[in-house]
C-alpha cells in the first residue's frame, strides 16, 4: 500500500472515527457519539417536536401556548435553555475525558 517506506508489522496507524482501535480511543469515541446524539436531539429534535405538535401553519400549538418563567415555551427552550445545555455538554465531555486520561497508564 505504501511502497516508499517499510512498514513494521507490529505497528498500525489506522485512525478511523467509526473503527476506534485503542481502548482509550474507543471509550472517547463512545463519549463523543453520546454527546453528538444529545446535541442533535436537543437542537434539531426540539424543532421537530414543534413541527409535530403544531396546529397551525405558523407553528402555533400546545408548545407555544404554554410559557415558562414568563417566556413563551419555544422561545425559552431554544433561546435560553439550549445554550445552557451546550455548556453542560461541554462540561460532561471535559470531565469524562479528564477521567479517561487519568485512568490511562502513562506513555512516552
Amino acid at each position, binding site marked *: 500500500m505504501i511502497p516508499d*517506506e517499510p512498514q513494521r508489522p507490529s505497528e498500525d496507524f489506522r*485512525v478511523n472515527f467509526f473503527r476506534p482501535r485503542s481502548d482509550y480511543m474507543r471509550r472517547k469515541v463512545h463519549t463523543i457519539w453520546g454527546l453528538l446524539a444529545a446535541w442533535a436531539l436537543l437542537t434539531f429534535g426540539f424543532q421537530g417536536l414543534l413541527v409535530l405538535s403544531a396546529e397551525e401553519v405558523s407553528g*402555533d400549538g400546545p408548545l407555544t401556548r404554554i410559557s415558562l418563567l414568563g417566556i*413563551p415555551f419555544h422561545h425559552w427552550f431554544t433561546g435560553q435553555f439550549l445554550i445552557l445545555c451546550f455548556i453542560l455538554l461541554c*462540561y460532561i465531555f471535559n470531565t469524562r*475525558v479528564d477521567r479517561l486520561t487519568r485512568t490511562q497508564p502513562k506513555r512516552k
Partner: protein
Amino acid sequence: MIGESVKMTPAVLLLLALGISLIVGLYARARKGEYYLGTGHSIGRMGIGAAIASNWMSAASFLGIAGVFYLQGYFALAYVIGWTGGYVLLLILMASQIRRFGRYTAPDFVEARYESTAARVLSAVITILISLVYCIAQYKGIGLVFGWIFGIDYTYALLLGAVVALSYILFAGYLGATRNQQLHYAMLIVSFLVPLMFVAYKLGYFWPLPQLGYGQALQDLSLGNMREYVSPWTFGTPFEWIALCFTLMVGTAGLPHVLSRFYTVPNPRDARWSVLWGLFFIGLLYWSAPAYGAFARAWEARHTLAADGDDVTALADIIVLKAGEWAGIPEWLVAVLAVGAILAAFSTITGLLVSGAGAFSYDIYYRLINPKADDRQRMAVARGTTLVLAMLVLIGALNPPGLIAQITAVAFALAGNTLFPLFLLGIWWDRTNKFGAIAGMITGMCITAASLLPGHILPGFNALFPPTSSALIGAPIVIVVMIVVSLLTPAPSLKIRRFLAEQVHKY
C-alpha cells in the same frame, strides 16, 4: 431617518475607548516576554475563555443578532443556536486534536496534514475569501453606527469609518500594540448588558435579568395583535431554520480565526476547558441579544408604530441603538452601546485583515510566487495586501447585500463547506489524502458560489442551498467527495499517519 447633528458624547467616548485600548495594548507589549512565556497559567482557563469570546464577538453578535430577532423573531434563534452550538462540535471533535497537531492557521494545518503546496494555496484562498465576506458585514455595522454618531449618510459614514478603522489598525500595528483580550471582553459585555437593563427598566419589564424580562415582552406581543411575530415558523420554514442553524454550527467549527485561538493555550486539557469558558462568555451575550429586538417590538406595539417593509429592514441592524433611544435611556448609555459595537467591529476586522494579509503574503506570495522573498519583502506585501483587502471590503460594503448577520452567515457557509470537512476528516480519518482535500475544497467553493447566484439560473437549487445555509447539504456532499476521491488515489505517507495515530490522538 438619522439625526443631522453630530452627537458629542458618543464621539468623545469613542476616542476615549480607542485611546485606552491602545495604551493598554502598549503596556501589554512592554511586558510581553513575561506575559507570553509565563503562558496560560497566569491567565488561567477562564482568561483564555474570555480571549476566545472577545475574539469571537463582532458586529454580527453585537448588532446583527438583535437586528434579525427584531425582524424575524424565532427564526433569528437559528443564529443564536448556530453560533453557540458550533462550539460543542468544535470541542468534542477537534479542539484538543488541533492543539496537539500544533499548526494554528488553516493553511499551515492543511499543508502539514495533506503534504501538498497546492492544497495549502487553495486553503489560503479560502481563508482570504472568508475574511473578505466577514469583513463586509463588519464594515456595514461600522458605517451604520458612524452614521448614527455623526448624523451623516451611510456612504459617507462608511468612508469615514473605514478611514478611522484602517488608521487605527495601522497605527496600532506600527506601535506594536497587542490587544488585552480580557479587558476587551469585559468592555464589550458591560457595554452590552448595562444599557439593556436600563431599557428593560424604562419599559417596565423585569430589569435585573433582562434575559428573562424580555419573555414578558414576547408574551405581551403574542397576546396583542402581533401573535404571528412570536410564532415559530412565520419568517422561515423548519427546513430553512435547521439548514441555517447547522451551517452556522459547522462554520463555527471550521472558521480559521477561531481555530488559531488555540495557539496561546498551553496544553490540550486547558484547550478543552477554555472552550467551555469561552462558550459561557459568548452565551452571556447571546442570551441577551434577542432582548433588544423584543423590547424594540414591544415599544412599537405600545406606540402603535407597526413599521413595515423597507423601514424595518433599514432599522434592523441598528435596532440595538434604536431600542435604547426609544425606551428613553440616557444618551450617554446609548453612546456606550455604539462604542461597544465599534470596538467589536474594529477588533474583528483587525484580526481578519491581518490573517487575510498573512495568508496572502506567506502562503501565496512567498510559497508560490517568490520563494526567495526575504522578511522585509514579505512585510511589504502583507501591508499592501491589508490595504487592498480593505479597499475590496469597502467596495463590497457600499451596497451591502443583506443584514449584518446574513452576510456573516455566508462566510460561515463557505467555512462549513470547505474547511470544516478538511479538518474533520483530516483528524478522524488517516486515509484522507491531498487529492481528496483538493477535490473537497473545490466542490465546497463551487457549492457556496452556486448558492449565491440568482435563483433563475439554477432553478430549485436555492431552495436546497439557501445562500446563508448551504452547508446542511453542502458539507455532507463535500465529505463524500473527499472520501471517494481519497479512496481512489494513493494513501498519504506513513509519516503523517503515524503522527496522527501517535501524537494527535494520544491521550
